[in-house]
């Protein structure tokens, strides 16, 4: 069996109870961390090559090292907004193995000298937040949270903050604004959160899965973490597989597991033995791939090399029965709906992308619409405050390019070329 770092519920289904978590070696990473210098923890995480699981794959230790030294309030924030379509992994860490996240939060807080942490959970996950809160209460009782943790002199308080339904609050500066009680509009960078973050104080934001990797890295050492997965893409990864597969779900596997193995072995292959048409490898914003990509190792660098990205590791599988025009019209609608409206290229561009795609889908497409879509994509890319505008382009453009024929067929014949499709609109 391969290494289990995050999904310890596979070792003990009741690991959400603190006693069970401790029996499995839980909170030993914290004990060790508190005996180390904060800088040594940052260096150990740097050496482990841990890269952010929130989407961009940014090196976590490096991010932590950007935090300024010295006095003053600092914050450690966990991004549990989990809004990227196709993504449903952080939820299971929080509901099944919540102490892993809590332990990672305290270690991270100690490493960056933050005495307060917030976990920003999407509002729809209130039922997950309740489980997590229970675990937080347990951790306070045992002295793993609160004042003078394990007699180390270090204080750390951890609070849950519920979002209220806005994808843009997953973007880290949108999230910070939302935590401050404002609308979730992203901020211009610089200044980066490490200089001017939550309540104007130095802040680090990390994804749930990223933070949950930390306790084992500290406990077992960076060499152990480096022994899993390909060079510079280390550790295990939770792949969340959805769409047309027999056994959808979350699978913790070594980083770099081939796409084919994930889809055909772990996720049970495609429903009805159908052919694979398209696969999104990293949440809806990741450029679409095709059957020729099945042997790609699912890691940051390998996916980048083929023009896509690992993103959140959410794999969306589409069989031959999928109308790509319709599927991507639905995704374009999502980006248009979620644009916060601050930047004209994103606000207008995403609305236009949806409008044009919808008319093609409705059989009212015009000659030249495909080039118009590509032109609009060019006018959004790189011209916005946050990456949502780019994300919409990375979603739509590769799909239109790869399946151009299908879009052209829709425009010319005013109907779909896929028979037996499941209607989306």
């Amino acid at each position, binding site marked *: 069996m391969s290494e289990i770092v995050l999904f310890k519920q596979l070792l003990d289904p009741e690991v959400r109870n603190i006693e069970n978590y401790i029996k499995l070696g839980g909170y030993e990473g914290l004990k060790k961390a508190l005996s180390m210098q904060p800088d040594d923890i940052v260096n150990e995480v740097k050496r482990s090559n841990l890269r952010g699981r929130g989407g961009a794959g940014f090196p976590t230790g490096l991010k932590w090292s950007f935090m300024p030294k010295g006095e003053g*309030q600092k914050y450690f924030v966990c991004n549990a907004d*989990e*809004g*990227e*379509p*196709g*993504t*449903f992994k*952080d*939820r299971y860490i929080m509901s099944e193995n919540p102490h892993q996240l809590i332990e990672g939060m305290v270690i991270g807080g100690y490493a960056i000298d933050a005495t307060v942490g917030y976990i920003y959970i*999407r*509002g*729809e*996950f*209130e*039922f997950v937040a309740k489980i997590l809160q229970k675990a937080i209460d347990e951790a306070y009782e045992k002295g793993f949270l609160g004042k003078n943790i394990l007699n180390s002199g270090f204080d750390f308080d951890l*609070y849950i*903050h*519920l*979002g*209220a*339904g*806005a*994808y843009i609050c997953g973007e880290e500066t949108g999230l910070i604004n*939302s*935590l*401050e*009680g*404002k*609308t*979730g509009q992203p901020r211009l960078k610089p200044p980066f959160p490490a200089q001017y973050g939550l*309540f104007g104080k130095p802040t680090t934001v990390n994804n749930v899965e990223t933070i949950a990797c930390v306790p084992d890295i500290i406990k077992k050492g960076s060499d152990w973490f480096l022994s899993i997965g390909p060079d510079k893409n280390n550790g295990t990864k939770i792949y*969340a*597989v*959805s*769409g*047309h597969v027999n056994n*959808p*779900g*979350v699978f913790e596997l070594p980083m770099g597991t081939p796409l084919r193995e994930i889809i055909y072995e772990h996720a049970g292959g495609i429903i009805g033995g159908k052919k694979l048409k398209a696969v999104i490898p990293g949440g*809806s914003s990741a450029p679409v791939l095709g059957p020729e990509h099945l042997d790609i190792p699912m890691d940051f660098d390998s996916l980048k090399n083929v023009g896509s990205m690992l993103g959140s590791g*959410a794999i*969306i599988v*589409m069989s031959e029965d*999928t109308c790509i025009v319709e*599927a991507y019209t*639905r*995704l374009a609608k*999502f980006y248009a*709906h*979620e644009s916060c409206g601050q930047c004209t290229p994103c606000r207008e561009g995403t609305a236009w992308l949806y409008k044009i795609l919808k008319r093609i889908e409705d059989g009212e497409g015009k000659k030249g619409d495909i080039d118009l879509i590509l032109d609009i994509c060019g006018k959004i890319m790189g011209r916005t405050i946050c990456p949502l505008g780019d994300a919409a382009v990375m979603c739509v453009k590769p799909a239109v390019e790869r399946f151009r024929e299908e879009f052209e067929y829709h425009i010319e014949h005013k109907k779909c070329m896929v028979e037996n499709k*499941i*209607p*989306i*609109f």
Partner: protein
Amino acid sequence: MALRFDESDVKKLEEIRAKYPNNQACTLPFLHYAQDKFGYVSMDVIKLVAQTLNLPVAHVLSVATFYTMYNKKPVGKYHLQVCTNISCSLLGARKLVDKLEELLGIKPGETTEDGMFTLTEVECLGSCGTAPVIQVNETYFENLDEKKVEDLIESLRKGELDV
């Protein structure tokens, strides 16, 4: 009628307030709390939250309107929120919406006349591996099909489910 928070509310709101360094940060949690208590976020609720936190009404209003989870009009006893994003749609979310329209006689965005059900289409609920999914109030119903939706509505009508 002027709305108010009673003593037990004030105690709970103070607990929330203690988590943050300033009043403004309480805007979202207070709105959640008020929506739970009063059913939806009316202009009166917005004014009450603003007054309680000593913040401009315009600020609370802007927050209440930015986030989709704050209901600006009354919703039914059961708020049926159907995810129609990609993973749910690939597995037939549209059929679930059609079925609900037929069973309830309303379109998305509407509430039944008896005030029992509101139907809404929503974006990805983070439950794509158990698609298609409907959130009813706070509870997720996963791996649904048309038959299960029929059973769900029947159970809700009979008051058999705690959501």
